[in-house]
């Protein structure tokens, strides 16, 4: 045995088991389809090192979505005698989970069953006779609670016992009959009164109460993100920058003679004889300030709320509410998950469009996300640029982005050949993750952001400074000036900001701030920054997920939309 596959229905906790076995952190949430990629790691049993592969969830061995297809083909390609399958089951919903288990056994895989979420099952009055289940299935069964780690040790000890069990191939109907018999013998339910949790679970999937709850949830989340972000800025990051960091930089500035190439690179331009964290555009001033004092606080607060919603299991309920609206733009309700992830960062958002079944849906969703969904860094910039002129302008940008997404979605839905599949998802029960698990997830997301963003921002500011110092961008500004000045009413220096936006959105803002634009110009610039091109990382993912042909198509759409929207804003709406 040199490979272990983790397989199970969506949302049974495969990624949690994977993290427990390998020590590698894989993002887990309480909704089907969190894992769309394949994670690999190693488990040491004694002296042996065995590869462990976490597969996307699937309901059966015949795949119906892209993520499932990936899981099933990988499993079937590998020789059965050299691999073992840890089939992970949700004990709270044993019956439905056994369908895949029986299929695996019938196909002759070496199987060990991991009956997960045992604690939650007990809470809900579900009691399962583990030994009897093992006897009936003919393969070892271990009960676990992966989130707290209970039973994992036993699972590791018994992995070697995984074996195949001779069974006839059944038709689907026969298999359900068989499952019915198994359930009757091993599962015992005790009656419980409806708990508050169950009442809330029910209320959130009904139209009226569901809408009311979603309104409350969205409002509260928005408030918390803002409150937490501002708290971090005012109490931690701003004091750090202004009270500790600024004096050091002032001394450095004087030591460098307050001018010259090096000063230009590190500190940037002086404004009224002093440097300004937002506008100076130095590698040591604006770059860290943008990243840590303007973007990071909101990354922390946004991902805190998103992670909480994910783990509780609220997101699929939002999907039901939005289903008919999203059908108008060629998607179905579940597209809300990529959109929400896209608000954090477009890259994971576009990756998670894999939860959608058809290529057409994935194209529409990816294009709309890269045009109309502003990521946290971009939003922090929109607030930074326009916040001083009042909420009216900020809200205006959001309204424009939202309108573009809807109109473009309707157009794409009309124009593109193909069909949009129907919503078909399982609604998970509410679960309340231990704070430690939530904290860990938040930590990994923030770490990921810092590793990806910080170097690019520092490097980006450095490169721009060199280019600006030697006036190397004059050619580019010259070429695009007619469009920028003529159509969008922006000064030609704004070209540089938009070009830099391609590198990372947050770098562009320091550029724009130093241009002393009018509110109208800032509004147009901020909107264009959002819709014109996504950042380079998003482009790479688009290429990977859609292929070159569709990427070119998406890019042409972006250019067309920018032209049209920029001109309309300039000549019609904000005259």
């Amino acid at each position, binding site marked *: 045995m040199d490979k272990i596959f983790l397989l199970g229905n969506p949302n049974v906790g495969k990624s949690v088991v994977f993290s427990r076995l390998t020590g590698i952190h894989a993002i887990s949430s309480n909704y089907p389809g969190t894992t769309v990629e394949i994670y690999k790691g190693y488990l040491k049993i004694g002296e042996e090192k065995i590869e462990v592969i976490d597969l996307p969830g699937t309901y059966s061995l015949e795949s119906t979505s892209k993520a499932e297809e990936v899981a099933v083909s990988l499993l079937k390609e590998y020789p059965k005698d050299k691999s073992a399958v840890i089939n992970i089951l949700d004990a709270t919903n044993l019956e439905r989970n056994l369908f895949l288990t029986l299929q695996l056994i019938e196909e002759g895989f070496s199987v060990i069953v991991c009956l997960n979420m045992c604690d939650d099952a007990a809470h809900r009055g579900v009691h399962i006779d583990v030994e009897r289940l093992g006897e009936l299935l003919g393969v070892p069964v271990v009960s676990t609670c992966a989130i707290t780690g209970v039973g994992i040790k036993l699972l590791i000890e018994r992995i070697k016992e995984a074996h195949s069990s001779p069974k006839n191939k059944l038709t689907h*109907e026969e298999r359900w009959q068989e499952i019915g018999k198994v359930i009757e013998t091993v599962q015992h339910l005790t009656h419980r009164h409806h708990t508050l949790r169950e009442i809330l679970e*029910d209320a959130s999937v009904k139209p009226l109460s569901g809408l009311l709850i979603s309104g409350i949830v969205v409002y509260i989340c928005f408030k918390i993100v803002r409150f937490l972000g501002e708290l971090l800025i005012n109490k931690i990051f701003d004091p750090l920058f202004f009270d500790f960091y600024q004096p050091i930089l002032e001394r450095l500035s004087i030591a460098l003679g307050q001018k010259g190439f090096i000063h230009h690179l590190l500190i940037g331009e002086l404004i009224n004889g002093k440097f300004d964290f937002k506008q100076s555009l130095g590698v040591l001033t604006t770059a860290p300030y943008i990243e840590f004092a303007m973007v990071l606080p909101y990354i922390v607060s946004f991902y805190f709320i998103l992670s909480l919603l994910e783990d509780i299991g609220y997101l699929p309920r939002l999907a039901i509410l939005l289903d008919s609206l999203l059908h108008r733009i060629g998607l179905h309700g579940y597209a809300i998950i990529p959109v929400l992830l896209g608000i954090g960062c477009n890259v994971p958002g576009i990756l998670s469009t894999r939860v959608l079944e058809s290529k057409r849906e994935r194209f529409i969703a990816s294009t709309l996300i890269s045009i109309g969904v502003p990521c946290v860094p971009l939003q922090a910039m929109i607030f930074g640029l326009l916040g001083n002129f009042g909420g009216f302008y900020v809200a205006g940008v959001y309204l424009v982005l939202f309108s573009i997404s809807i109109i473009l979605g309707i157009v794409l839905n009309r124009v593109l050949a193909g069909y949009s599949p129907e919503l078909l998802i399982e*609604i998970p029960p509410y679960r309340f993750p231990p704070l430690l698990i939530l904290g860990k997830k938040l930590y990994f997301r923030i770490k990921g952001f810092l590793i990806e963003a910080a170097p690019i921002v520092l490097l980006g500011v450095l490169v721009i400074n060199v280019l600006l110092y030697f006036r190397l961008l004059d050619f580019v500004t010259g070429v695009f000036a007619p469009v920028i000045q003529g159509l969008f009413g922006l000064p030609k220096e704004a070209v540089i900001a938009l070009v830099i936006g391609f590198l990372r959105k947050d770098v562009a803002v320091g550029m724009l701030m130093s241009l002393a634009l009018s509110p109208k110009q800032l509004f147009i610039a901020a909107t264009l920054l959002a819709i014109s091109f996504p950042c380079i990382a998003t482009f790479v993912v688009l290429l990977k997920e859609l292929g070159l042909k569709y990427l070119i198509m998406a890019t042409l759409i972006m250019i067309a939309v920018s032209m049209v929207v920029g001109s309309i804003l300039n000549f019609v709406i904000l005259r």
Partner: protein
Amino acid sequence: MRKISLVQLRENQKAKVWEISGGRILQHKMMSMGIYPGRKITKLSHFAIRGPVVVKVGRGVLALGYGIAAKIIVEIE
């Protein structure tokens, strides 16, 4: 015993699946998620303007798009 589609079933009403009048792929998908002829289900809710239908199947809750729900024919008392 009357046969109606899942869309027509009233909220909180119980019924028995009689047929999935869709293609092989839909039948298979439904089958693997636990909706098959003979299965007892309870409709929990239904969203307006051709919105999804939410049903309870065994211990799980499923949301089905309008188009799918219309193809699931159930038997009621």
